[in-house]
C-alpha cells in the first residue's frame, strides 16, 4: 500500500504542511501519510551505556526537511523506490530468476525483514547485513553478479525492502552468535580515528544536538537508511555514510561491506532498537 503510494507520487508536487519547530527534545510527531505513526524517541536498552534515549535523526531536522518525510508526495526517494521495485521482478543471472521468483509478493515476504538486520546467518557463520543478504541471493540463487555494495541498484533494492517494514520497531539481536561482532562494533564506535582523532561517539553521543558550524549533530541513528540526502541528491547506503564520516576525521576509512563496517552497522542499529524503521528518510 505504502509502496504504491510512494511510487504514484514520484515527481508530483503538493502543498507542504510545515511542522512547528525542530529540536531533538521537542515533541514533534512523525506520522507518515497521516496514518503510519513513527516512534522517533525511545529509551535505549541497558547495553547501550552512553545513551539513555534514542532519537531518530528526523527530530534534529528543521521543519522544512521534516515536512518532506510527512507525506510520500514530498519524499524525493520515490524515484529510487520505483527503480528498486522494477528490479525486484527483473530476471537476472544464469538461473532465470528474479527476487520475485522465490519471494513472490514483496509486501508479504519482506514485512519485518529490515527491522531485524544486520543479523547472524548460521550458514555463512557471520553477521549479514541486508545488502550482503541481497548479494548472497544474487550470486547463490540467481546466478547473477553481485551488485556494488553501496551502488544505486543495491540502495534502491534496500529502500523498497525497507519500506515494507516502515513503522515497525528496529529489533536487531545483540546476543548469541552475533555478540562478538556487536562488541567489535562497539569498540569501533568509541575509537578515535584519523588525524582529527574523532570517534563516532565524540560527535553523535557526546555532542548530539550541538552544532558544528551549520551542521546540527544528530545521534547518528540509522533507522532511516537508506536515506535520501539532499546534499548529494540521491539515496545513500548506510555504510557509505559511515565511510564519509570516517573520511571526515582525516582517517583511512574502512570499505563498505567490510567486516568492520558490518560490525559497526550492527552496533549502531542496536543503539536505535525500538525506533521505527523510517527508510527511506530525508536528511541534509
Amino acid at each position: 500500500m505504502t509502496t504504491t503510494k510512494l511510487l504514484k507520487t514520484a515527481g508530483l508536487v503538493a502543498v507542504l504542511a510545515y511542522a512547528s519547530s525542530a529540536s531533538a527534545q521537542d515533541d514533534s510527531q512523525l506520522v507518515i501519510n497521516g496514518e503510519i505513526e513513527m516512534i522517533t524517541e525511545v529509551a535505549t536498552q541497558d547495553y547501550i551505556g552512553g545513551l539513555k534515549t534514542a532519537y531518530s535523526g528526523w527530530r534534529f531536522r528543521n521543519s522544512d526537511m521534516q515536512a518532506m518525510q510527512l507525506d510520500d508526495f514530498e519524499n524525493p526517494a520515490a524515484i529510487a523506490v520505483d527503480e528498486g521495485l522494477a528490479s525486484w521482478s527483473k530476471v537476472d543471472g544464469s538461473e532465470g530468476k528474479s527476487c520475485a521468483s522465490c519471494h513472490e509478493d514483496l509486501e508479504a515476504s519482506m514485512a519485518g525483514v529490515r527491522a531485524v538486520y544486520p543479523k547472524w546467518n548460521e550458514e555463512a557463520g557471520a553477521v549479514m547485513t541486508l545488502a550482503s543478504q541481497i548479494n548472497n541471493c544474487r550470486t547463490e540463487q540467481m546466478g547473477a553478479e553481485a551488485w556494488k555494495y553501496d551502488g544505486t541498484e543495491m540502495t534502491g533494492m534496500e529502500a523498497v525492502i525497507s519500506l515494507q517494514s516502515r513503522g515497525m520497531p528496529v529489533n536487531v539481536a545483540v546476543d548469541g552468535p552475533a555478540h562478538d561482532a556487536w562488541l567489535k562494533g562497539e569498540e569501533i564506535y568509541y575509537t578515535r580515528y584519523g588525524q582529527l582523532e574523532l570517534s563516532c561517539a565524540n560527535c553523535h553521543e557526546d555532542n548530539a544536538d550541538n552544532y558544528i558550524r551549520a551542521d546540527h549533530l544528530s545521534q547518528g541513528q540509522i533507522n532511516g537508511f537508506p536515506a535520501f540526502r539532499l546534499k548529494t541528491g540521491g539515496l545513500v547506503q548506510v555504510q557509505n555514510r559511515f565511510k564519509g564520516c570516517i573520511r571526515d576525521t582525516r582517517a583511512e576509512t574502512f570499505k563498505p561491506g567490510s567486516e568492520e563496517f558490518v560490525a559497526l552497522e550492527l552496533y549502531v542499529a542496536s543503539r536505535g532498537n525500538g525506533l521505527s524503521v523510517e527508510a527511506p528518510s530525508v536528511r541534509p
Partner: protein
Amino acid sequence: MKRTAIALAALIGSGTFVSAETVTPDNVVMDEYGSIEASLTGVAGDPAAGAEVMSSRGLGNCVACHQVSALSAAFQGNVGPSLDGAADRWEEAQLRGIVSNAKMTFPDSVMPSFYKTSGFIRPGNAFTGKAAEGALEPLLTAQQIEDVVAYLATLKE
C-alpha cells in the same frame, strides 16, 4: 641575516618550510599541565592572520566548534566553550598548549590536536579517505599556531 630568513619564512608561510627557529611537533616542550612557554617560531604572532585562520574552513576553522563574538564568521558552533574572554582565563603559554594539543590540558577533550604529527589511529591522506603516505603535516603550521595564540590573547572582556 637570521632575522631576514625568519621574516622570509613568515612571508612564505608554507607548512613545509621549517626555519632554524621553528620547533617541530615532536620537539615541542610542554609542561605537565600542557602549557608551552616558548614560541614555536620566534616570530611574534599576527592577530589578524590568526583571526583568518580561526574563521576559515580550510584552515583552523575554530568557529566550527567555538563561538567568538568578535569574529564575523557565520554559523559559529557550540561543541566547545565560547572563546570570548579567553585571554582573561588563560596565559599565553596555556593558550599555545591548548591550540597545539588540547588533550594535554583537557584529557577528554574532543578537540583535534593542531600541532601534532604522530600517534594517530588509521591516519588518512587529508580528506581523501585513503591511507596517509609519508610523514604527516600538522593541521596548522607553527606560525599559524602563533598567529592564533596572538589573536586569542586579544579576547578580553
